[in-house]
């Protein structure tokens, strides 16, 4: 009986991660024939998987845009709950002949080196991790200047803050999330050098639970609001929901991250507290990468950085909460693009 249970659970778990989402290219109208020239794109997701209404879904949007243009189909795989099977997802996609394959999330950085070596004829891209460190010709890194976008988020927070006290909640204390922190702090201090900024991470490096712990996000943000902060910026993935909940309960405001969270929270009470979101245009980066793959212009072994100038990062305006300070924000944006302001990447 126990063996049965175990076997059953394994089968279910396998089902869960193997089953393809049916979206694919069916709706795009471009999926005829199925010949070998057909574009077959593989997507391997970060923790949170398809339907996270954020990072991973932005990648899907990029792939769908590319398929709209070039035709073809795609297959996406989400990792299991503890994300221990990342490498398996990549090899599975490569074995099934998907090309190019896009790994979404810096966590793939640890495993992708071995996989790209195993499949030299497949073109890989990784979002949020550097390909230069790996040094393989068939891997491109898609990087973002999160610090620049976060700088603008800091500008918006400091300008809008009435108490001169703001906060930052990071998911996991990794160099990537520290870029958000560094930019945010620099931006806020550029507007108001005296501003008080509470900064806290939910979990330390190595423990990725901080991206998926809404209760902890809520408690950390609650502490900041009680201490007098009136705007909190989160770079904490799924834990950000808790930050919004805390903001709604305290009658204060929060800044979202990655996607336009005003449009993705599905809850009017939470929409009202989202001042703006720091957009990371993963969709642009992914569709641009597929474009260059189709053109045959992928260089490989190098990183492409999407910054403010390339519209890889920016602030959302949904809800109209920052319309009145748009001039200030545009001013700083221009200064960053012109190189007059150098945004730090480490706090």
């Amino acid at each position: 009986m126990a063996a049965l249970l175990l076997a059953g659970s394994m089968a279910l778990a396998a089902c869960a991660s193997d089953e393809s989402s049916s979206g694919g290219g069916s709706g795009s109208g471009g999926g005829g024939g199925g010949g070998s020239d057909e574009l077959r794109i593989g997507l391997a997701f970060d923790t949170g998987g398809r339907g996270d209404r954020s990072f991973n879904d932005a990648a899907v949007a990029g792939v769908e845009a590319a398929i709209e243009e070039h035709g073809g189909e795609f297959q996406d795989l989400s990792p299991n709950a503890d994300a221990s099977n990342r490498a398996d997802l990549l090899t599975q996609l490569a074995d099934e002949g998907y090309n190019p394959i896009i790994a979404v999330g810096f966590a793939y950085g640890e495993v992708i080196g071995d996989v790209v070596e195993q499949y030299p004829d497949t073109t890989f891209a990784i979002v949020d991790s550097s390909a230069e460190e790996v040094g393989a010709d068939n891997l491109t890194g898609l990087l973002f200047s999160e610090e620049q976008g976060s700088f603008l988020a800091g500008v918006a927070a400091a300008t809008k803050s009435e108490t001169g006290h703001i906060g930052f909640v990071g998911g996991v204390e990794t160099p990537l999330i520290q870029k958000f922190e560094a930019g945010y702090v620099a931006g806020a201090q550029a507007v108001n050098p005296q501003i008080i900024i509470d900064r806290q991470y939910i979990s330390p490096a190595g423990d990725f639970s901080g991206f998926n712990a809404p209760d902890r996000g809520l408690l950390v943000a609650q502490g900041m609001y009680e201490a007098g902060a009136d705007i909190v910026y989160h770079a904490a993935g799924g834990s950000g929901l808790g930050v919004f909940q805390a903001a709604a309960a305290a009658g204060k405001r929060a800044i979202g991250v990655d996607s336009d969270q005003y449009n993705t929270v599905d809850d009017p009470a939470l929409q009202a507290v989202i001042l703006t979101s720091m957009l990371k245009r993963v969709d642009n980066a992914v569709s641009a990468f597929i474009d260059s793959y189709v053109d045959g212009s992928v260089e490989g072994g190098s990183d492409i950085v999407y910054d403010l100038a390339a519209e890889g990062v920016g602030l959302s305006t949904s809800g109209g909460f920052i319309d009145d300070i748009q001039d200030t924000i545009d001013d700083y944006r221009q200064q960053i693009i012109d190189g007059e302001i150098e945004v730090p990447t480490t706090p």
Partner: protein
Amino acid sequence: MSTVATPSGTRPSRGRLTDLFTGGGRSRRVLWLLLGVVLLVSIVRVISGEQQLTSSSTMAAALLLAVPIGLAALGGLFSERAGVVNIGLDGMMTLGTWGAGFAGYQWGWGAAVVGGLLFGALGGLLHAVATVTFGVDHVVSGVAINILAAGFVRFLSEALYSDNPAGGGVTQSPPVDGTPPTFSVPVLSSGPDLLGSLERQGWFLVSDVAGILRGLTSGIGLLTLIAVLLVPASYLLLWRTAFGLRLRSCGENPAAADSLGVPVYRLKYVAVVISGALAGLGGVFLVFIAGIYREGQVNGRGFIGLAALIFGNWRPGGLAAGAGLFGFTDALQLRSRAAVVALFLLVAILLAVLALVQARRGNLLTAGIAAVVAVAALVAFLTVEELPPGLVSFTPHLTTLLVLSLASQRLRMPKADGLVYRRGEH
């Protein structure tokens, strides 16, 4: 000589003062212990200046973090008291979160509670079928349920949320419709907020007690209230009713219980299903915090609940204390890294007292060790500004582990816990 009568009446008086502290049975000893802890923490707060140690906000956070662990532990209590080890609590909690998310987004928070209870109970039923009817090893079945639950909820989410117009996706549900009401005690912690103004004075002991009370009485969610009340309710049910006695007899000596006409199999089923439902309720609580079901939300709380159960010596009060301890230290490390350093001072004072007591009793070795560690803790308090984040986030586990190993000298689990019972074979 004694003027303070001890209700038990079995112990000779050891002097007026000793009687005052240790007489009056268990409830008075617990009261003194609680008072001592509050006094100690209060001293530490005044010396270290870490207001977060006893602030109402930390207490509210501690309660929030303790409730899901406590509910899982309560679930474990029912099951293990009936003799079925329940490693599957974590999986049952996971099932509970999914059930709450699924029912909650369609029919509101009331349905979410029912959905979570039901899904948790289903997990419990599966465990009961495997362990009671088919005699599977309890640990094997529990581990299987944990793995099964993780796969099962992913499967359900893929099937139901992938292209759901209400939102959600493979790893999360659409938002739950509404949240349960919250309560505050009138006058004391809302309106005039007497406790709040007392807390803000920063007075020694008085403000600490006010802070603790306010944290536990202000803005308490309905589910939190139910969870807290479930602790004494479980005690009454298990130790003060015939049903409870029969259930516990299944965990102590099922053969004897069977021979006296107790329906052992049926009671074990009931206990394990209740166990699953309570763990599921813990999952519901997590869903209400986030306003959504998210995969991996449980994050091992079922196992911590199990630890709290063992630390609590398989008793409701003990497991509540264990969950509370974990919740408090977790809240502290989330709110203020500096406040965690103040815990060193707490340890130093505790061990200094222990050293004195042991020295008076003549246990010089123990006293010496305690004194050395106390000095080390004091030095750590005075020199360490802030602990590295990796260590800080580990504080709750470390504290619980320490207390567990110190307090677990006299633990006694139900005698037939974890043994497969076969009628007529014993």
